[in-house]
């Protein structure tokens, strides 16, 4: 089982990003996904900056994948996407069918978590188009994944989003700008003020969702650490950990140690609870509401 680091979903200052990936080079990760996948207005890092990071991470022994934008609207976004896909060196992650179309038959690609692959026929289509790995949509359950793996073309790796606030929705509207009273065209990049997004609470002050520009995330942090033994048995190839602004090194370490058998699932989960943003959730994996925390699974067995 390999560990991957997903793309940074938030808008961090340039120095913070550069510093973050300097640390990432030292972490026990196999794969690192790089690039802006949320909003094309976030341009503190130029394509060359990303390539420099990619080079350093490759030198540190990581497999680098360039991730592409999820919601594509403007011509300029398509051009940037094409440049990323034709980079000639690194694998790319397609998060939209436009990216799949650009890569299909030309370069291998990772079929990202937003392509809506829900069945074996879709998996086969992606495989035929040149996918070498696919990432399961976050709302699918262990039962569906097992059925998919039974019908999965051989030679196609399976990756599961195993830690982080869940990417739940995308919109033409920028909700960060909206809640700051600004139009999107004059957003002043206010999403940069929120290193882990801004929490949206119910009127009872219960954390519910997180606003991250045009993206809506869960307020809970999804953790499938408890399902790790199950995923190993199923033959999942890669676990994706999605960056948070603090304690990410510890998160990686916990997953690595549990995989390695040095740390129990129970102890690992206990530690994650202390450093995760918001409560932990794992409901999607067990076929329930995504926001649920299915406790039995953690209490039993693998501890």
């Amino acid at each position, binding site marked *: 089982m390999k560990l991957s680091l997903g793309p940074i979903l938030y808008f961090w200052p340039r120095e913070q990003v550069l510093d973050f990936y300097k640390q990432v080079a030292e972490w026990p990760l196999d794969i690192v996904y790089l690039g802006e996948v949320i909003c094309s207005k976030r341009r503190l890092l130029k394509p060359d900056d990303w390539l420099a990071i990619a080079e350093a991470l490759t030198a540190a022994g990581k497999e680098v994948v360039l991730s592409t934008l999820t*919601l594509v*609207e403007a011509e300029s976004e398509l051009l940037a996407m094409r440049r990323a896909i034709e980079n000639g060196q690194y694998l790319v992650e397609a998060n939209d069918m436009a990216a*799949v179309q650009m890569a299909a038959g030309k370069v291998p690609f990772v079929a990202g978590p937003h392509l809506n692959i829900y*069945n*074996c026929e879709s998996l086969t289509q992606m495989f035929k188009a040149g996918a070498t790995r696919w990432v399961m949509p976050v709302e699918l359950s262990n039962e569906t994944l097992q059925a998919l793996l039974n019908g999965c073309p051989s030679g196609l790796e399976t990756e599961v989003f195993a830690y982080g606030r869940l990417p739940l929705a995308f919109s033409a*509207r920028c909700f960060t700008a909206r809640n700051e009273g600004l139009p999107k*065209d004059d957003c002043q990049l206010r999403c940069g003020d929120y290193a882990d997004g*801004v929490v949206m609470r119910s*009127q009872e002050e*219960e954390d519910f969702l997180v606003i991250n520009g045009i993206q809506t995330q869960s307020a809970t942090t999804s953790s499938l650490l408890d399902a790790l033994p199950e995923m190993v048995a199923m033959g999942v190839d890669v676990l994706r950990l999605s960056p948070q602004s603090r304690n990410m090194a510890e998160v990686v370490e916990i997953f690595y140690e549990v995989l390695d058998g040095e740390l129990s699932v129970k102890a690992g989960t206990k530690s994650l609870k202390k450093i995760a943003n918001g409560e932990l959730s794992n409901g999607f994996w067990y076929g329930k509401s995504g926001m649920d925390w299915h406790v039995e699974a953690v209490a039993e067995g693998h501890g």
Partner: protein
Amino acid sequence: MANKVELVCPAGSFPALRAAVDNGADAVYMGFRDATNARNFPGLNFDERTARQGIEYAHQRGAKVLLALNTYPQPQSWAIWEAAVDKAAALGVDALILADFGLMAYAARTHPQLRLHLSVQGSATSAEAIAFYRERFNIQRVVLPRVLSLSQVKRVINNTDVEVETFAFGSLCVMVEGRCYLSSYATGESPNTCGACSPAKSVRWEETPHGRNVRLNGVLIDSYKADDSAGYPVLCKGRFLVNGKLGYALEEPTSLSVLDILPQLIEAGVSAIKVEGRQRSPAYVAQVTRVLRQALDAAQANPAGYTPRRDWVAQLDKVAEGSTHTLGALERNWQ
């Protein structure tokens, strides 16, 4: 008339289908009574017998019937979706509206003569994405997600030979269709998996001394004072706290209406405009179809002289969510 734009109206039931056809719809769209379509609500949709009746009624009056199979089948229940494709083909529908490219592969392979439309749930927002479906499955039409501005819609049309259908009126999805898991995050059921958003069985209303609360699987979505009008609690249109401020954090209850820009949409080259609302009443369908038929005819006959009539606007606002309308993403300011 050259380049006639098709008016596509919702048929959630046989009476709604009749209302649409009788009031001037060029085509109606409907779904089977199960999770294979994105309006899987109790009491809605068609079994095989009523579907046959509906198709006959529409065809006798020159209207087309499009069948929506626009949810995403999972391996455990794949056979139901395959059977639905076969059933639709046997019934003689004029086109299938599909979202899942796996199911599309099946349909194209098994029924090559059957016309395929890419559903809005397929999330194709660019000519490149559309080309993926065109080249592999020979789709004839795409329904665009409600995320593009008018100029972006134009650019898509200019760069594809696939017909483009856009939404004209009805409840507004704030998120890119087909990529929204908010409902399953809260309730376990989403449009993609079950054909339901904020499903009724998860909704609970409670009267409190401070007003009327509405919960979705326990989460407080909104709270209404005695004289507030309370709509259906779709979770993206509730009131929440952001940085301590209470408001419609994502979107107000409102409906999309393109009445103001119909000539521009026609000029952009749309092939069809669509009315949302298979879950709405036959009276709604009749009202909206009647108004849009008149508006579309007027805008095509004399685009330069077109202005939306005040009675049209009033009639549509009466049946709109929140009794108000917006151009949504078609207008940059909304974004």
